[in-house]
């Protein structure tokens, strides 16, 4: 077992699935000769040819629409949106068309497509290279939404996403690409979509998170362990399907729930999980449901001070959890 970065794990997953299935192909901006701006597809054009790693014109709507049309023909396209911030020109093809295809054709057509996007902030990306876009897709029936936090999860989940017969939005937090490293098995493996992972077991508080902030939650949990507060950290891994069972089991065990995400707080994933717990684990709760999330401003600003003020950090999370533990 070798230690790898998230970006290496992503690249390995794509490469292995392309070798496994000739129907899998990549299309996007700078994915071929450049190997992607984050190098997620480095070397793939040389290995599989430029017909299967297509450098598209700089036009996101057609990247998505063309990938979707190829999926209608039974291909398994992996369109890359260079930054999640650039998904908006293609949003009709994704939310308007792809998500409704199976339902709108009564199952006659499938959309075996994985839309990969680097997302999220904390990298001085400003308003247009830092966006958290997950809530829009989380809200859309017909899409699956995957948000890995570690190299092991990224590879296993991406391979499953590529083999899935539905449109899967695969969100890779760009700050984790090289920052987060971990062991990845040499042998073949996949991880199921819709199954959360308890990254740290605990008995006093349940913290639910995903992506970059999952790591901040783990840091906060370590800090609180020294204060006698035993925190369980649930990594959602996939937002859709949402693993309600794991969330509820944990909440019933600890009696306290906090949700942490970088995306804006209002109407976010945390709000839905809070409603889930309030509706189905009400009798088990012995404290208010807490959210530590991005504030309601349009993405984290560019200036360091303002970006820091926006981002949920281990310290902010720990502060929140201390208050919750005091109930």
């Amino acid at each position, binding site marked *: 077992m070798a230690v790898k970065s998230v970006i290496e794990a992503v690249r390995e997953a794509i490469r292995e699935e392309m070798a496994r299935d000739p*129907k899998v*192909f990549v299309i996007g901006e700078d994915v071929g000769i450049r190997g992607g701006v984050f190098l997620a597809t480095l070397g793939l054009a040389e290995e599989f040819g430029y*017909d*299967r790693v297509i450098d*598209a*014109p700089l*036009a996101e*709507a*057609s990247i*998505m*629409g*063309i*990938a*979707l*049309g*190829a*999926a*209608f*023909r*039974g*291909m398994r*396209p992996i369109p890359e949106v260079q930054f999640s911030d650039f998904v908006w*020109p293609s949003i*009709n*093809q994704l939310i*308007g*068309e792809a998500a*409704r*295809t*199976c*339902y*709108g*054709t*009564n*199952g*006659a*057509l*499938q*959309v075996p497509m994985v839309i990969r996007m680097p997302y999220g902030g904390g990298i001085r990306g400003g308003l247009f290279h830092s966006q958290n876009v997950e809530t829009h897709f989380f809200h859309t*029936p*017909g899409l*699956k939404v995957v948000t890995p936090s570690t190299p092991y999860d990224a590879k296993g989940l991406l391979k499953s996403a590529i083999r899935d*017969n*539905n449109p899967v939005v695969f969100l890779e937090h760009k700050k984790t690409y090289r920052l987060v490293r971990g062991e990845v098995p040499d042998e073949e493996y996949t991880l199921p979509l819709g199954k959360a992972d308890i990254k740290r077991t605990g008995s006093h508080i349940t913290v639910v998170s995903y992506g970059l902030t999952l790591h901040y939650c783990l840091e906060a949990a370590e800090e609180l362990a020294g204060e006698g507060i035993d925190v369980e950290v649930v990594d959602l891994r996939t937002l859709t399907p949402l693993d309600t069972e794991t969330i509820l089991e944990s909440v019933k065990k600890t009696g306290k729930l906090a949700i942490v995400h970088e995306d804006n707080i209002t109407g976010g994933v945390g709000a839905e999980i809070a409603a889930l717990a309030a509706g189905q684990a009400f009798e088990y709760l012995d404290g208010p449901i807490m959210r530590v999330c991005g504030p309601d401003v349009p993405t984290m600003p560019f200036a360091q001070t303002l970006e820091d003020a926006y981002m949920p950090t281990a310290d902010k999370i720990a502060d929140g959890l201390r208050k919750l533990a005091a109930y």
Partner: protein
Amino acid sequence: MPRKRTTTTQADGANGARAKTRLPKGLKNSDLVDYYTRLVQARSLDERIWALNRQGKVPIAASSQGHEAAQLGSLLAAEKDGDCFLFPYYRDLALKVAAGLTPVQTMMSFMGKAGDPYSNGRQFPLQGADLPHKIIQISNVVAAGLTQSVGYALGCRMAGEKTVVLVYFGDGATSQGETHEAMNFASIHKLPVIFICENNRYAISTPKTSQMAIEEFADRASSYGFPGFTVDGMDLVACYEATREAIIHARSQGPVLLEMMVERFMSHTTDDDDSRYRPEGEVERARERDPVVTLARTLIDETILTQKQVDEIAAAVLKATDEATDIADASSPPDESGLHDMVYSP
């Protein structure tokens, strides 16, 4: 293929002689009779659907009356070729019916009944997919189907197939950015896509002069590096021949744009009232070139059909429309238990 204006219709004479379609090359008489019958059937259903809307039995309909020659002429070429796939748009009722949908299936779809082959009552009529007849139309968002059709052609090429994709859209869709993106990508990759613009010069109420500053949309093809033609879309034979040539070109050299000049005989949809924005007498003048009437006249003039046979076709078609209406009207809507089905594919 040089850029040219294509028509086979003789101009109306000053002495009142009416327009007439000449016979095509490479077709049998039986093809024309077959297509005439399909044309009349599509028109009959179209008219009935409009009436059923007024009776409260069809919630919404977009008529293809006036567009049929473009739709069926191109379909005839596609069927003769045998390896084409279609991405129609919402005004392609005649195309979808003529491609093989039965009158009963058509009426089921318009009434939103269980067994609607396109979407089982989930979508607007004849919207979704009819894969047995090689048709996909996912949505009402104009031009969304263009990029999808280009992707479909790309997928066919990856699968080692020689399929030519015909994608249909109205002049309204020419203003969308995705139309540009689709044409650009198709040209870069020399994909076998035929872009068929059914230009009736109206995007609902917005006239062509408010949509583009050029005379012919086909001119835009040159900016992408592929040929574009303006075709008389009221002439089934001209549309057949232009599409036949385009299919040959597309398969070997890449995309073609066919701008088929058609007339919209009805309002935009059953919810629209075109008397608010169309000049008086415009529709009446357009109807003088009704493709149903024109083709019937040709078939009789060329002694392919007698008037009696034309009348017999009309009677048989009307009977089929009547029966289909009754069957669909009496059939069940989808069961509400199916609301949650097929959100995801297994």
